[in-house]
Protein backbone atom coordinates (compact mmCIF):
# COMPACT_ATOMS: atom_id res chain seq x y z
CA UNK A 1 0.00 0.00 0.00
CA UNK A 2 2.76 2.44 0.72
CA UNK A 3 5.70 3.55 -1.35
CA UNK A 4 9.10 2.23 -0.29
CA UNK A 5 11.53 4.41 1.65
CA UNK A 6 13.64 4.90 -1.49
CA UNK A 7 10.61 6.01 -3.47
CA UNK A 8 9.45 8.46 -0.81
CA UNK A 9 12.91 9.96 -0.33
CA UNK A 10 13.28 10.37 -4.10
CA UNK A 11 9.84 11.99 -4.34
CA UNK A 12 10.74 14.45 -1.59
CA UNK A 13 14.02 15.28 -3.30
CA UNK A 14 12.41 16.06 -6.66
CA UNK A 15 9.43 17.84 -5.11
CA UNK A 16 11.54 20.11 -2.93
CA UNK A 17 13.76 21.07 -5.88
CA UNK A 18 11.01 21.37 -8.45
CA UNK A 19 12.96 19.64 -11.17
CA UNK A 20 16.26 17.91 -11.90
CA UNK A 21 17.93 16.99 -15.15
CA UNK A 22 17.12 13.35 -15.83
CA UNK A 23 20.79 12.39 -15.63
CA UNK A 24 21.03 14.09 -12.23
CA UNK A 25 17.80 12.42 -11.06
CA UNK A 26 19.27 9.01 -11.82
CA UNK A 27 22.40 9.86 -9.83
CA UNK A 28 20.28 11.00 -6.90
CA UNK A 29 18.22 7.82 -6.99
CA UNK A 30 21.33 5.67 -7.18
CA UNK A 31 22.78 7.52 -4.19
CA UNK A 32 19.60 7.04 -2.16
CA UNK A 33 19.57 3.32 -2.97
CA UNK A 34 23.19 3.05 -1.84
CA UNK A 35 22.50 4.77 1.45
CA UNK A 36 19.58 2.54 2.39
CA UNK A 37 21.22 -0.59 1.03
CA UNK A 38 18.74 -1.11 -1.76
CA UNK A 39 19.66 -2.52 -5.16
CA UNK A 40 19.92 -0.14 -8.15
CA UNK A 41 19.51 -1.59 -11.62
CA UNK A 42 18.85 -0.11 -15.07
CA UNK A 43 15.15 -0.55 -14.47
CA UNK A 44 15.00 1.09 -11.03
CA UNK A 45 14.63 4.67 -12.32
CA UNK A 46 11.71 3.91 -14.64
CA UNK A 47 10.02 1.72 -12.04
CA UNK A 48 10.43 4.35 -9.32
CA UNK A 49 8.92 7.17 -11.36
CA UNK A 50 6.05 4.92 -12.43
CA UNK A 51 5.32 3.71 -8.88
CA UNK A 52 5.33 7.27 -7.56
CA UNK A 53 3.05 8.56 -10.31
CA UNK A 54 0.58 5.75 -9.70
CA UNK A 55 0.17 7.09 -6.16
CA UNK A 56 0.36 10.86 -6.58
CA UNK A 57 -1.84 11.28 -9.66
CA UNK A 58 -4.95 11.13 -7.53
CA UNK A 59 -3.73 14.31 -5.79
CA UNK A 60 -3.26 16.07 -9.12
CA UNK A 61 0.50 15.75 -8.96
CA UNK A 62 2.92 14.08 -11.31
CA UNK A 63 6.57 13.52 -12.11
CA UNK A 64 6.81 14.45 -15.76
CA UNK A 65 9.74 14.19 -18.17
CA UNK A 66 10.19 17.02 -20.65
CA UNK A 67 12.83 18.12 -23.12
CA UNK A 68 14.02 21.61 -22.10
CA UNK A 69 15.80 23.32 -25.03
CA UNK A 70 17.48 26.22 -23.14
CA UNK A 71 19.59 23.69 -21.25
CA UNK A 72 19.57 21.09 -24.05
CA UNK A 73 18.57 18.36 -21.60
CA UNK A 74 15.67 16.25 -20.45
CA UNK A 75 14.24 17.23 -17.10
CA UNK A 76 12.21 15.32 -14.53
CA UNK A 77 9.69 17.88 -13.26
CA UNK A 78 7.45 17.68 -10.20
CA UNK A 79 4.18 19.33 -11.08
CA UNK A 80 1.11 20.36 -9.14
CA UNK A 81 -1.68 20.68 -11.68
CA UNK A 82 -3.17 24.14 -11.39
CA UNK A 83 -6.80 23.26 -11.87
CA UNK A 84 -6.94 22.23 -8.22
CA UNK A 85 -8.75 24.70 -5.96
CA UNK A 86 -6.74 23.51 -2.94
CA UNK A 87 -3.57 24.84 -4.60
CA UNK A 88 -4.76 28.34 -3.82
CA UNK A 89 -4.68 27.64 -0.10
CA UNK A 90 -1.09 28.46 0.73
CA UNK A 91 -0.50 30.36 3.93
CA UNK A 92 2.60 32.28 3.10
CA UNK A 93 2.14 33.79 -0.35
CA UNK A 94 1.09 37.45 -0.23
CA UNK A 95 -1.19 38.51 -3.03
CA UNK A 96 1.35 40.98 -4.47
CA UNK A 97 3.83 38.14 -4.97
CA UNK A 98 1.27 36.00 -6.76
CA UNK A 99 0.35 38.98 -8.93
CA UNK A 100 4.00 39.63 -9.69
CA UNK A 101 4.48 35.99 -10.68
CA UNK A 102 1.59 36.20 -13.08
CA UNK A 103 2.79 39.53 -14.51
CA UNK A 104 6.26 38.08 -15.06
CA UNK A 105 4.82 35.03 -16.82
CA UNK A 106 2.74 37.28 -19.05
CA UNK A 107 5.65 39.58 -19.89
CA UNK A 108 7.78 36.63 -20.98
CA UNK A 109 5.00 35.00 -22.99
CA UNK A 110 4.25 38.25 -24.82
CA UNK A 111 7.88 38.85 -25.76
CA UNK A 112 8.99 37.69 -29.18
CA UNK A 113 11.91 35.56 -28.08
CA UNK A 114 10.31 34.47 -24.77
CA UNK A 115 13.17 36.08 -22.85
CA UNK A 116 13.10 39.36 -20.93
CA UNK A 117 15.94 41.22 -19.25
CA UNK A 118 16.34 40.80 -15.51
CA UNK A 119 16.08 44.56 -14.94
CA UNK A 120 12.85 44.75 -16.92
CA UNK A 121 11.58 41.86 -14.85
CA UNK A 122 12.19 43.61 -11.52
CA UNK A 123 10.70 46.84 -12.90
CA UNK A 124 7.42 45.04 -13.44
CA UNK A 125 6.57 45.57 -9.78
CA UNK A 126 5.95 49.25 -10.45
CA UNK A 127 2.93 48.26 -12.53
CA UNK A 128 1.22 46.78 -9.48
CA UNK A 129 -1.64 48.77 -8.12
CA UNK A 130 -1.66 49.42 -4.41
CA UNK A 131 1.18 48.36 -2.14
CA UNK A 132 3.98 47.43 -4.54
CA UNK A 133 6.87 45.10 -3.79
CA UNK A 134 10.27 46.72 -3.37
CA UNK A 135 12.80 46.20 -6.14
CA UNK A 136 15.10 44.30 -3.80
CA UNK A 137 12.27 42.00 -2.73
CA UNK A 138 11.42 41.53 -6.42
CA UNK A 139 15.00 40.53 -7.15
CA UNK A 140 15.09 38.14 -4.20
CA UNK A 141 11.83 36.50 -5.10
CA UNK A 142 12.82 36.07 -8.75
CA UNK A 143 15.90 34.23 -7.50
CA UNK A 144 13.66 31.99 -5.36
CA UNK A 145 11.51 31.20 -8.38
CA UNK A 146 14.63 30.37 -10.40
CA UNK A 147 15.72 27.95 -7.64
CA UNK A 148 12.28 26.37 -7.78
CA UNK A 149 12.70 25.95 -11.57
CA UNK A 150 9.76 28.18 -12.51
CA UNK A 151 12.11 30.50 -14.35
CA UNK A 152 15.54 30.14 -15.89
CA UNK A 153 18.22 32.78 -16.19
CA UNK A 154 20.94 33.03 -18.80
CA UNK A 155 23.11 36.08 -19.56
CA UNK A 156 20.88 38.34 -17.42
CA UNK A 157 17.81 37.30 -19.39
CA UNK A 158 14.91 35.38 -17.88
CA UNK A 159 12.71 32.83 -19.53
CA UNK A 160 10.27 30.15 -18.47
CA UNK A 161 11.83 27.31 -16.52
CA UNK A 162 10.99 23.63 -16.99
CA UNK A 163 8.44 23.75 -14.19
CA UNK A 164 6.44 26.71 -15.51
CA UNK A 165 6.30 25.18 -18.99
CA UNK A 166 5.00 21.86 -17.68
CA UNK A 167 2.67 23.05 -14.90
CA UNK A 168 1.04 25.90 -16.80
CA UNK A 169 0.87 24.28 -20.22
CA UNK A 170 -2.94 24.25 -20.30
CA UNK A 171 -3.15 27.76 -18.84
CA UNK A 172 -0.89 29.11 -21.60
CA UNK A 173 -2.90 27.41 -24.31
CA UNK A 174 -6.20 28.78 -23.08
CA UNK A 175 -5.16 32.29 -21.97
CA UNK A 176 -2.42 33.07 -24.50
CA UNK A 177 -3.52 31.13 -27.55
CA UNK A 178 -2.24 33.93 -29.81
CA UNK A 179 1.16 34.24 -28.21
CA UNK A 180 2.15 30.63 -27.62
CA UNK A 181 2.63 27.85 -30.06
CA UNK A 182 1.11 24.40 -29.78
CA UNK A 183 2.93 21.56 -31.48
CA UNK A 184 0.56 20.22 -34.15
CA UNK A 185 1.80 16.67 -33.54
CA UNK A 186 1.23 16.30 -29.78
CA UNK A 187 -0.99 19.37 -29.19
CA UNK A 188 1.09 20.45 -26.18
CA UNK A 189 2.56 23.92 -25.78
CA UNK A 190 5.96 24.28 -27.42
CA UNK A 191 8.70 26.86 -27.07
CA UNK A 192 11.98 26.91 -29.02
CA UNK A 193 10.72 24.24 -31.40
CA UNK A 194 11.67 23.54 -35.03
CA UNK A 195 9.85 25.41 -37.80
CA UNK A 196 8.87 24.27 -41.26
CA UNK A 197 10.50 26.50 -43.89
CA UNK A 198 7.30 26.55 -45.94
CA UNK A 199 4.29 26.88 -43.62
CA UNK A 200 6.18 28.14 -40.54
CA UNK A 201 4.43 25.70 -38.22
CA UNK A 202 6.51 24.98 -35.10
CA UNK A 203 7.03 21.45 -33.76
CA UNK A 204 8.74 20.01 -30.67
CA UNK A 205 12.20 18.76 -31.66
CA UNK A 206 11.41 15.32 -30.21
CA UNK A 207 8.01 15.11 -31.93
CA UNK A 208 9.30 16.03 -35.40
CA UNK A 209 12.37 13.80 -35.05
CA UNK A 210 10.15 10.81 -34.32
CA UNK A 211 7.86 11.70 -37.23
CA UNK A 212 10.76 12.11 -39.66
CA UNK A 213 11.98 8.60 -38.93
CA UNK A 214 9.21 7.37 -41.23
CA UNK A 215 8.44 10.37 -43.43
CA UNK A 216 10.26 13.21 -45.12
CA UNK A 217 7.55 15.87 -45.36
CA UNK A 218 6.11 18.48 -43.02
CA UNK A 219 3.22 16.93 -41.05
CA UNK A 220 1.19 20.10 -41.51
CA UNK A 221 1.63 21.32 -45.11
CA UNK A 222 3.34 18.22 -46.58
CA UNK A 223 6.05 20.22 -48.29
CA UNK A 224 9.51 18.66 -48.09
CA UNK A 225 11.05 19.10 -44.65
CA UNK A 226 14.20 21.21 -44.89
CA UNK A 227 14.99 22.31 -41.33
CA UNK A 228 17.89 20.38 -39.77
CA UNK A 229 16.91 18.51 -36.62
CA UNK A 230 20.36 18.03 -35.11
CA UNK A 231 21.83 20.61 -32.66
Amino acid at each position, binding site marked *: *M*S*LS*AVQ*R*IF*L*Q*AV*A*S*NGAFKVAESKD*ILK*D*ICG*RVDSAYTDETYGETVEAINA*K*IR*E*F*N*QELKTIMYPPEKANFLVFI*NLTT*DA*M*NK*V*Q*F*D*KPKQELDFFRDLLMAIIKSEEKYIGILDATNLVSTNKGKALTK*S*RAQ*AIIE*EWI*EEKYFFEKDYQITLGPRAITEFSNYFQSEFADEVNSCPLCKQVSFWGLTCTECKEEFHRDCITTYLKKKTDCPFCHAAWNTPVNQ
Partner: protein
Amino acid sequence: MSSDEDVEMANAEKASDIKNIVKIFLNNCANQMPVKRQHIVQYALNGKSKSFNAAFDVAKQILSQTYGICIYEVSDSKTKQYITVSEFVGFRKEHAKHRRPQMVILMIILSYIYMKGSSITESSLFVFLRSINIDVEADDENSYFGTNLKKMITDTFVKKLYLKKRKEDDSLNKDPSNLYSWGFRAEIEFPKKDVLTEACKLIQKDPRLFVYQYNQAYNIVDEEMSSSQS
Protein backbone atom coordinates in the same frame (compact mmCIF):
# COMPACT_ATOMS: atom_id res chain seq x y z
CA MET B 1 -32.24 1.89 -3.25
CA SER B 2 -31.92 5.40 -1.90
CA SER B 3 -29.95 4.33 1.17
CA ASP B 4 -27.34 2.71 -1.12
CA GLU B 5 -27.07 5.99 -2.97
CA ASP B 6 -26.75 7.81 0.34
CA VAL B 7 -23.92 5.55 1.40
CA GLU B 8 -22.21 6.01 -1.95
CA MET B 9 -22.52 9.77 -1.70
CA ALA B 10 -21.24 9.77 1.84
CA ASN B 11 -18.22 7.72 0.80
CA ALA B 12 -17.51 10.01 -2.14
CA GLU B 13 -17.74 13.02 0.15
CA LYS B 14 -15.38 11.44 2.68
CA ALA B 15 -12.90 10.59 -0.10
CA SER B 16 -13.04 14.19 -1.26
CA ASP B 17 -12.52 15.48 2.30
CA ILE B 18 -9.47 13.29 2.71
CA LYS B 19 -8.02 14.39 -0.61
CA ASN B 20 -8.52 18.07 0.24
CA ILE B 21 -6.77 17.69 3.60
CA VAL B 22 -3.84 15.88 1.98
CA LYS B 23 -3.52 18.68 -0.56
CA ILE B 24 -3.59 21.48 2.02
CA PHE B 25 -0.69 19.87 3.83
CA LEU B 26 1.24 19.14 0.63
CA ASN B 27 0.87 22.72 -0.53
CA ASN B 28 2.12 24.07 2.76
CA CYS B 29 4.96 21.73 3.54
CA ALA B 30 7.58 23.54 1.45
CA ASN B 31 6.83 26.83 3.24
CA GLN B 32 6.93 25.06 6.64
CA MET B 33 4.02 27.13 7.92
CA PRO B 34 1.78 25.61 10.58
CA VAL B 35 -1.69 24.65 9.36
CA LYS B 36 -4.54 25.53 11.70
CA ARG B 37 -7.35 23.09 12.36
CA GLN B 38 -9.87 25.86 11.71
CA HIS B 39 -8.38 26.47 8.26
CA ILE B 40 -8.60 22.80 7.41
CA VAL B 41 -12.27 22.83 8.40
CA GLN B 42 -12.83 26.05 6.46
CA TYR B 43 -11.00 25.26 3.21
CA ALA B 44 -10.84 21.50 2.96
CA LEU B 45 -14.06 20.47 4.65
CA ASN B 46 -16.35 23.35 3.71
CA GLY B 47 -17.04 24.12 7.34
CA LYS B 48 -18.04 20.59 8.31
CA SER B 49 -16.27 20.36 11.64
CA LYS B 50 -17.71 16.94 12.44
CA SER B 51 -15.98 15.40 9.43
CA PHE B 52 -12.56 16.40 10.70
CA ASN B 53 -11.43 13.46 12.84
CA ALA B 54 -12.24 10.62 10.47
CA ALA B 55 -10.85 12.36 7.37
CA PHE B 56 -7.78 13.68 9.20
CA ASP B 57 -6.66 10.24 10.37
CA VAL B 58 -6.76 8.80 6.88
CA ALA B 59 -5.05 11.87 5.42
CA LYS B 60 -2.21 11.47 7.93
CA GLN B 61 -1.73 7.89 6.86
CA ILE B 62 -1.58 8.82 3.18
CA LEU B 63 0.90 11.62 3.84
CA SER B 64 3.13 9.16 5.64
CA GLN B 65 2.80 6.19 3.29
CA THR B 66 3.00 8.01 -0.03
CA TYR B 67 4.98 11.13 0.75
CA GLY B 68 7.01 10.19 3.83
CA ILE B 69 5.62 13.22 5.66
CA CYS B 70 4.75 13.19 9.36
CA ILE B 71 2.10 15.42 10.93
CA TYR B 72 2.72 16.75 14.42
CA GLU B 73 0.22 18.66 16.52
CA VAL B 74 1.91 21.77 17.89
CA SER B 75 1.92 21.31 21.65
CA ASP B 76 2.05 24.76 23.17
CA SER B 77 -0.37 26.62 20.97
CA LYS B 78 -3.61 28.41 21.79
CA THR B 79 -5.34 27.19 18.64
CA LYS B 80 -5.00 23.66 17.33
CA GLN B 81 -2.40 23.63 14.61
CA TYR B 82 -0.15 21.14 12.85
CA ILE B 83 3.22 21.07 11.15
CA THR B 84 4.71 18.71 8.59
CA VAL B 85 8.13 17.14 9.08
CA SER B 86 9.84 14.72 6.71
CA GLU B 87 10.29 11.21 8.04
CA PHE B 88 13.66 11.14 6.34
CA VAL B 89 15.46 13.98 8.06
CA GLY B 90 18.85 12.50 7.34
CA PHE B 91 18.45 13.12 3.62
CA ARG B 92 17.42 16.73 4.00
CA LYS B 93 20.78 18.29 3.35
CA GLU B 94 21.50 17.37 -0.23
CA HIS B 95 17.99 17.84 -1.49
CA ALA B 96 17.31 21.43 -0.50
CA LYS B 97 20.48 23.20 -1.55
CA HIS B 98 18.85 26.61 -1.70
CA ARG B 99 17.90 26.25 1.94
CA ARG B 100 21.47 25.69 3.03
CA PRO B 101 22.21 29.30 4.20
CA GLN B 102 18.99 29.30 6.19
CA MET B 103 19.90 26.02 7.85
CA VAL B 104 23.41 27.21 8.63
CA ILE B 105 22.35 30.36 10.45
CA LEU B 106 19.56 28.47 12.18
CA MET B 107 21.96 25.82 13.45
CA ILE B 108 24.27 28.53 14.76
CA ILE B 109 21.44 30.28 16.60
CA LEU B 110 19.93 27.11 18.02
CA SER B 111 23.32 25.89 19.23
CA TYR B 112 24.00 29.25 20.88
CA ILE B 113 20.63 29.29 22.65
CA TYR B 114 21.06 25.70 23.77
CA MET B 115 24.57 26.10 25.14
CA LYS B 116 23.60 29.32 26.91
CA GLY B 117 20.77 27.62 28.79
CA SER B 118 17.30 27.96 27.38
CA SER B 119 16.58 31.48 26.23
CA ILE B 120 18.51 34.60 25.27
CA THR B 121 17.63 38.22 24.60
CA GLU B 122 17.47 39.57 21.08
CA SER B 123 20.34 41.98 21.72
CA SER B 124 22.67 39.31 23.09
CA LEU B 125 21.90 37.15 20.07
CA PHE B 126 22.78 39.97 17.68
CA VAL B 127 25.96 40.75 19.62
CA PHE B 128 26.98 37.10 19.39
CA LEU B 129 26.33 36.98 15.65
CA ARG B 130 28.34 40.15 15.13
CA SER B 131 31.21 38.54 17.03
CA ILE B 132 31.34 35.84 14.36
CA ASN B 133 31.12 38.43 11.58
CA ILE B 134 27.42 38.13 10.87
CA ASP B 135 26.01 41.64 11.09
CA VAL B 136 22.26 41.30 11.28
CA GLU B 137 21.55 45.02 11.23
CA ALA B 138 23.79 45.87 8.27
CA ASP B 139 22.09 47.70 5.45
CA ASP B 140 23.88 46.02 2.63
CA GLU B 141 22.98 42.54 1.52
CA ASN B 142 24.91 39.76 3.17
CA SER B 143 26.62 37.86 0.40
CA TYR B 144 25.87 34.40 1.78
CA PHE B 145 22.65 34.78 3.70
CA GLY B 146 20.97 37.26 1.38
CA THR B 147 18.69 40.18 2.12
CA ASN B 148 17.01 40.89 5.37
CA LEU B 149 18.72 38.49 7.70
CA LYS B 150 17.09 40.25 10.64
CA LYS B 151 13.61 39.53 9.28
CA MET B 152 14.56 35.91 8.64
CA ILE B 153 15.57 35.48 12.28
CA THR B 154 12.99 37.57 14.12
CA ASP B 155 10.01 36.85 11.88
CA THR B 156 10.38 33.93 9.46
CA PHE B 157 12.02 31.51 11.88
CA VAL B 158 9.39 32.35 14.49
CA LYS B 159 6.54 31.79 12.03
CA LYS B 160 7.99 28.43 11.02
CA LEU B 161 8.25 27.51 14.71
CA TYR B 162 12.01 27.11 14.62
CA LEU B 163 12.26 29.84 17.25
CA LYS B 164 9.92 30.96 19.97
CA LYS B 165 9.77 34.67 20.73
CA ARG B 166 8.29 36.16 23.87
CA LYS B 167 8.62 39.34 25.88
CA GLU B 168 10.79 39.38 28.96
CA ASP B 169 8.74 38.95 32.10
CA ASP B 170 9.64 42.22 33.74
CA SER B 171 6.86 44.42 35.05
CA LEU B 172 9.35 47.11 36.09
CA ASN B 173 10.72 47.54 32.59
CA LYS B 174 8.65 49.70 30.28
CA ASP B 175 10.32 48.25 27.21
CA PRO B 176 10.91 44.56 27.80
CA SER B 177 13.20 42.84 25.32
CA ASN B 178 12.37 39.89 23.13
CA LEU B 179 13.51 36.52 24.40
CA TYR B 180 14.30 33.72 21.98
CA SER B 181 14.17 30.00 22.73
CA TRP B 182 13.81 26.79 20.72
CA GLY B 183 10.51 26.48 18.86
CA PHE B 184 8.37 23.37 18.49
CA ARG B 185 9.78 22.55 15.03
CA ALA B 186 13.37 22.89 16.20
CA GLU B 187 12.75 20.41 19.02
CA ILE B 188 11.68 17.83 16.44
CA GLU B 189 14.13 18.50 13.62
CA PHE B 190 17.33 19.05 15.63
CA PRO B 191 18.12 16.23 18.07
CA LYS B 192 19.77 17.78 21.09
CA LYS B 193 22.41 15.04 21.23
CA ASP B 194 23.71 16.11 17.81
CA VAL B 195 23.64 19.81 18.66
CA LEU B 196 25.59 19.20 21.87
CA THR B 197 28.12 16.95 20.15
CA GLU B 198 28.75 19.43 17.31
CA ALA B 199 28.97 22.46 19.61
CA CYS B 200 31.43 20.71 21.89
CA LYS B 201 33.57 19.65 18.93
CA LEU B 202 33.85 23.32 17.96
CA ILE B 203 34.90 24.54 21.37
CA GLN B 204 36.86 21.37 22.07
CA LYS B 205 35.25 20.52 25.38
CA ASP B 206 33.70 17.34 26.71
CA PRO B 207 29.89 17.36 26.43
CA ARG B 208 29.56 16.08 29.96
CA LEU B 209 30.95 19.38 31.27
CA PHE B 210 27.65 20.94 30.28
CA VAL B 211 25.50 19.17 32.82
CA TYR B 212 22.21 20.95 32.08
CA GLN B 213 22.54 20.49 28.31
CA TYR B 214 23.75 16.90 28.67
CA ASN B 215 20.79 15.96 30.84
CA GLN B 216 18.43 17.62 28.39
CA ALA B 217 19.97 15.79 25.46
CA TYR B 218 19.96 12.36 27.06
CA ASN B 219 16.66 12.78 28.86
CA ILE B 220 18.12 12.28 32.28
CA VAL B 221 16.32 13.33 35.50
CA ASP B 222 13.58 15.52 34.05
CA GLU B 223 11.42 13.30 31.89
CA GLU B 224 9.95 16.31 30.08
CA MET B 225 6.85 15.74 28.06
CA SER B 226 8.56 15.57 24.70
CA SER B 227 6.73 16.88 21.66
CA SER B 228 4.24 14.14 21.00
CA GLN B 229 3.31 12.79 17.61
CA SER B 230 -0.41 13.37 17.24
